[in-house]
């Protein structure tokens, strides 16, 4: 009985992240539009877009291979699994032991691997541009993420997100290293989600695109699945930051329905605040030059390294 309930809660989490992800995108677009003194589309617009895309026929380039057709599903699946393993409204869910933070990072790495390959499949220059830039940024963003994980794990004594979240609730401490890790994680999140100083999700300029360039040849249901995966990724990163640095209000495994509900409400609140702050930052900054991004993300790597070093050093006293 307990097992079935545990699996049920895990299932709810999986469905919930999937259901909320497009809404999060809609919310960020709405906030951005309001900040730019525009009305903006409805928050529900991404749902309508997805529906419209899946109903359309998919147009495939003549020389598209099986990889091009299957990659969207693999990208979606790996991202979804990763998103489902991040504690959102509740910590310590049944399957959260399946993968720790390093494995979640690597799962996103798998999604990126397939996306970059899909970008190269048709053989247009734009796909190549996107893939090559994406892999360049990833070469620094991934180690930065690992160093941030190190920092967090050294404080909390675990790379398991549930354990980390519970540790942070129980021993809420202000640590220099955690501050550094937070800044680093924000930089990584902006990079990974193709947000403004690194990439522009709203751009129409093919030559400046990163994420959009890779999916330029996708259409119909394939595009819908990839867009959904991108939305899931944004949700994942905001949830991740909330889970590590602001885990309060999160339900525990043995909490009742009420506790879970409180968890859900606070989680949605955190998502809204997180995405609002992100959009605020985006509005105030221009996109970087491509070769300034490695310095930006390299900064995150160094912050992670610095945080780890500080912890390694302070352990001795």
């Amino acid at each position, binding site marked *: 009985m307990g097992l079935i309930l545990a699996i049920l809660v895990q299932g709810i989490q999986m469905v919930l992240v999937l259901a909320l992800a497009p809404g999060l995108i809609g919310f960020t677009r709405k906030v951005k539009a309001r900040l730019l003194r525009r009305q903006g589309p409805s928050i529900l617009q991404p749902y309508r877009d997805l529906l419209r895309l899946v109903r359309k026929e998919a147009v495939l*380039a003549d020389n598209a*291979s099986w990889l091009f057709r299957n990659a969207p599903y693999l990208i979606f*699946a790996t991202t979804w699994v990763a998103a489902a393993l991040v504690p959102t409204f509740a910590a310590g869910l049944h399957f959260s032991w399946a993968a720790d933070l*390093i494995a979640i990072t690597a799962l996103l790495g798998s999604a990126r691997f397939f996306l970059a390959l899909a970008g190269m499949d048709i053989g247009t220059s734009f796909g190549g541009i996107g893939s090559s830039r994406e892999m360049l940024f990833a070469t620094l963003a991934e180690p930065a993420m690992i160093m941030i994980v190190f920092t967090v794990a050294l404080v909390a004594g675990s790379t398991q997100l549930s354990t980390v979240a519970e540790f942070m609730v129980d021993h809420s401490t202000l640590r220099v290293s955690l501050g550094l890790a937070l800044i680093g994680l924000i930089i990584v999140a902006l990079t990974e989600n193709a947000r403004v100083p690194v990439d522009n999700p709203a751009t129409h300029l093919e030559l400046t695109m990163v994420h959009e360039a890779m999916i330029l040849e996708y259409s119909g249901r394939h595009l819908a699945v990839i867009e959904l995966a991108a939305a899931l990724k944004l949700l994942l990163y905001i949830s991740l930051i909330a889970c590590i640095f602001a885990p309060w209000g999160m339900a525990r495994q043995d909490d009742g329905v009420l506790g879970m509900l409180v968890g859900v409400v606070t989680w949605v609140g955190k998502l809204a605040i997180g995405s609002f702050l992100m959009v605020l930052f985006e509005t105030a900054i221009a996109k970087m030059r491509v*070769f300034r991004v490695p310095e930006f993300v390299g900064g995150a790597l160094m912050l992670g390294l610095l945080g780890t070093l500080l912890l390694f050093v302070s352990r001795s006293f």
Partner: protein
Amino acid sequence: MRDAENRRAGYVYLLMASFGTLMLLLAFGLLAGPDGDYAFSAIRTAEHVPWLAGLVLVLMLLGAGSKAGLVPLHVWLPLAHPAAPSHVSALMSGVMTKVAVYGFIRVVFDLAGEPAWWWAVLVLILGAGSAVLGVLHAVLQRDLKRLLAYSTVENIGIIFIGLGLGLAFKTNNMAGAAALAVTASIFHAFNHSLFKSLLFFGAGNVLTGSGERDIEKLGGLVHRMPETAYLFLGGCLAISALPPLNGFVSEWLILQAILLSPDLPQWALRFLVPASGAMLALAAALAAACFVRAFGITFLSRPRSPAAETAHEVSRWQIRAMYSLLVVCLIAGVFPGPFLDALSPVSQMLVAGAMPKQPILPHLSIIPISESRSSYSGFLVFFFIMMASWAAIRVIHNFASRAVRRAPPWDCGFPDASPVTQYTADSFAQPIRRVFGPIAFRAKISQTMPQPGDLAPARLTLSLRDLIWELIYTPIESAVLFAAERLNILQFLTIRSYLSLVFAALVLLLVLVATWA
């Protein structure tokens, strides 16, 4: 052209191999000591003077390192491995380098006695350097097999990072942590032999099917060699340390070992270990970029040459051999527990500790230290990915449009079918070259762009310098040349002079033996 290249490869290989053997012989000589007993048991029980043991480590690093391809002794490897036929290359890269690793482990962990903490420093620096420099070189290669050879250098570096961690923990009597590091390292060696062989077989298929190993001339092979493409992709995923394949498991375990290092008392190690963790992560991310490029340029896009256009799939038996390797890669990634358990006697022998017994339940997870610290279930991750993609496909196909239309690529309304309008391998690597190149290769470009209205071709020239070759080998080479020129005089001496030279050498040796005893 290729002959000259092969001759050079053979020459460098011969030199490096004899150099390595010399170092190994000297190491064993030192281990055997004055008693001259070369039996392992005798060496193991003998008391080793610390500085002598240290010298043994250095000699082993030089000897085994040159055989395994540790930077900066790797120079022969990217020349020699591609020169051999592909199945031999697979053997060389996949298995032979591991023999050197075995020798290193055997001597340094087992025979050389108690390690000093600075051993770990040395091994970690060499390992981290090899990992990053190896993969940086790999990213820039055009020759598929040379790319794989450089990637071997990277993986040897990762293995040595693990071994360095093992040494660091062993010298501080942290048996559990040392067991984790050494097990991870050996598991990675095992994994590497699997996927590197798989990849070399794939490269061999490409060579057989198209006659071309320059990836700038390949492309679109996914249509003509679908099964090779499928298998090569599997190898790429594994070597890029992506879950749920095996490469991820071993690198994950090494990262877990790094997380145990704050307890180390030495300052140098405390700084070095997280730094080498960063290097390891950097190498893994660069490896992903490298193999996206390798697979994407070779198998995806459109053919860049007639050779690629007329490529054909290879025989079924070649394919089947590769399938078996891929299956083992998958099994080792999804059910790593039994593999780790199988390695526990080894770690027991080497560092007098073992990882916890890997439980079958719950979820077939592996647990490096304790469940509350970290766990990973390859099976669950694999199962979830499969379920999620299956669900997505079912939902989409049942409730949405299944219609597909084939059309020319979009490409801004100017679908130019010529192969030059797709990314080249060199272009793909340019951003990485630009970011890491100034440090690693002193990359320099110069550009002439004609003014508007001038129809002359624009020109870009690029110069890359292999700093290791220039800083280490070129001076040695010129020194040797210099010496050879001087020694050349000896050729024209009388017999009496030769005899006196030999006599002098004999006397010198005797004096040495006398002082040694």
